[in-house]
């Protein structure tokens, strides 16, 4: 075959005779190119380096500020929580001392219950013993029982709507709001003939035959009434014709003071 005509020597000879390729440039030009390239290289090496360092610096600053920021907000949250707890316990103390004047404040349960009741939207399920939510003065709202499920604690929550008179609000508290998770706070058996407003006191004239029993149901109703009375600007609630002397810690034979708003939120 013609194709295998070349032996190694032929190829070696051909390779040795490959043309000499010359650099046609003048050495001065070459040197100039090198010089400028060295300079360019230097600046080229520095600029990205500086840029990278600047970027890293910015990143570091951003990262630290973000981390610090999250720390700050976390600690702020904790601080707020703490102050709320403190306020809560103070107001509980205040509430119970207030009751101490009228009653022997034997049990803390009703106070807790009152304290736990939420004034504005819905119940504060979590940390009810810590977060006592202030009562919004002049909101003129009714209070209902809020219970997320059978096993959870009952809590008092205020209505969304306001009422022109305490009379109307109390009526609503017997009927209920229609929301299944919000139930009436006053049992139908608790009846009154009229509601008399006397300056800082509201008098509920209980109907003949209305039997208040010392049960949680009535205690809750009493507290709901107290909170409602407070919303309407009263300091005391008097239950006339009460068949029992005491309901929980409350002395029904005397004027029952409304609970102190623990942490009023403006």
């Amino acid at each position, binding site marked *: 075959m013609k194709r295998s*005509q070349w032996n190694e020597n032929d190829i*070696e000879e051909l390779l040795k005779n490959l*043309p000499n390729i*010359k650099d046609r440039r003048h*050495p001065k030009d070459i040197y100039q190119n090198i010089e400028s390239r060295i300079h360019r290289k230097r600046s080229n090496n520095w600029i990205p380096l500086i840029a990278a360092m600047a970027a890293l610096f910015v990143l570091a600053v951003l990262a630290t500020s973000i981390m610090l920021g999250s720390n700050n907000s976390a600690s702020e949250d904790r601080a707020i929580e703490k102050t709320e707890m403190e306020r809560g316990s103070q107001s509980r103390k205040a509430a119970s001392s207030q009751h101490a004047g009228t009653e022997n404040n034997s049990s803390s349960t009703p106070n807790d219950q009152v304290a736990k009741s939420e004034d504005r939207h819905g119940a504060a399920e979590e940390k009810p013993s810590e977060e006592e939510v202030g009562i919004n003065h002049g909101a003129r709202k009714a209070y209902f029982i809020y219970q997320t499920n059978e096993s959870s604690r009952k809590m008092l929550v205020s209505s969304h709507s306001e009422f022109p008179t305490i009379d109307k609000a109390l009526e609503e508290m017997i009927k209920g709001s229609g929301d299944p998770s919000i139930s009436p706070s006053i049992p139908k058996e608790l009846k009154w003939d009229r509601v008399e407003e006397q300056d800082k006191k509201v008098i509920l004239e209980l109907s003949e035959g209305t039997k208040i029993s010392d049960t949680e149901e009535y205690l809750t109703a009493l507290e709901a009434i107290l909170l409602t009375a407070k919303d309407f600007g009263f300091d005391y609630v008097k239950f006339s014709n009460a068949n029992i002397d005491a309901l929980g810690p409350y002395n029904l034979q005397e004027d029952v003071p409304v609970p102190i708003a623990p942490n009023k939120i403006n």
Partner: protein
Amino acid sequence: MDSVFLEIYEKYHRDLFQFLFYLVKNRETAEDLVQEVYIRVLKSYDRFEGKSSEKTWLFSIARNAAIDHFRKQRSWKQKLFESFDWERNQIKDQQPLPEEKALQNDNMRRVYKSLDDCTMDQRSVIILRYIQSLSISETAEVLGWTESKVKTTQHRALKAVKKAMEEQAGKEEIPFEKIPME
């Protein structure tokens, strides 16, 4: 002008340029690379210890410059998915033939073209051994190989050139009467 530059230029510029040109087969690239060699040499000339000859030292710098050039040329995909294997990869540039008269000859042209079918290592050996007329041991020094590796690579390089030349001849279907054959 730098005295080191002048000295190297006078002694080795022709060889360095020639070596680089046949490695990359492109005049402009060779021009850039020979400058790169000067830059590297001027930066590290004081590190030249005289263990190897100045010439082999310069050739090894030139070869590294060429290798770096080819690395830069590869696409990011190639860089990502493969490490460049100098023994296997073949650098096929479709560069125009230099205008040199010697390459008007069919066989010279075929030999020149056949370098494309050699690996980077084979090409390096061919250039150093046949174009630069370096000895086996000098070539080994430039490449940092053992002499036996130079020999086997040289052998394979010649075979590759031969095969490539035969393939070209077959394709071109040019009669070979000009070629003395046995």
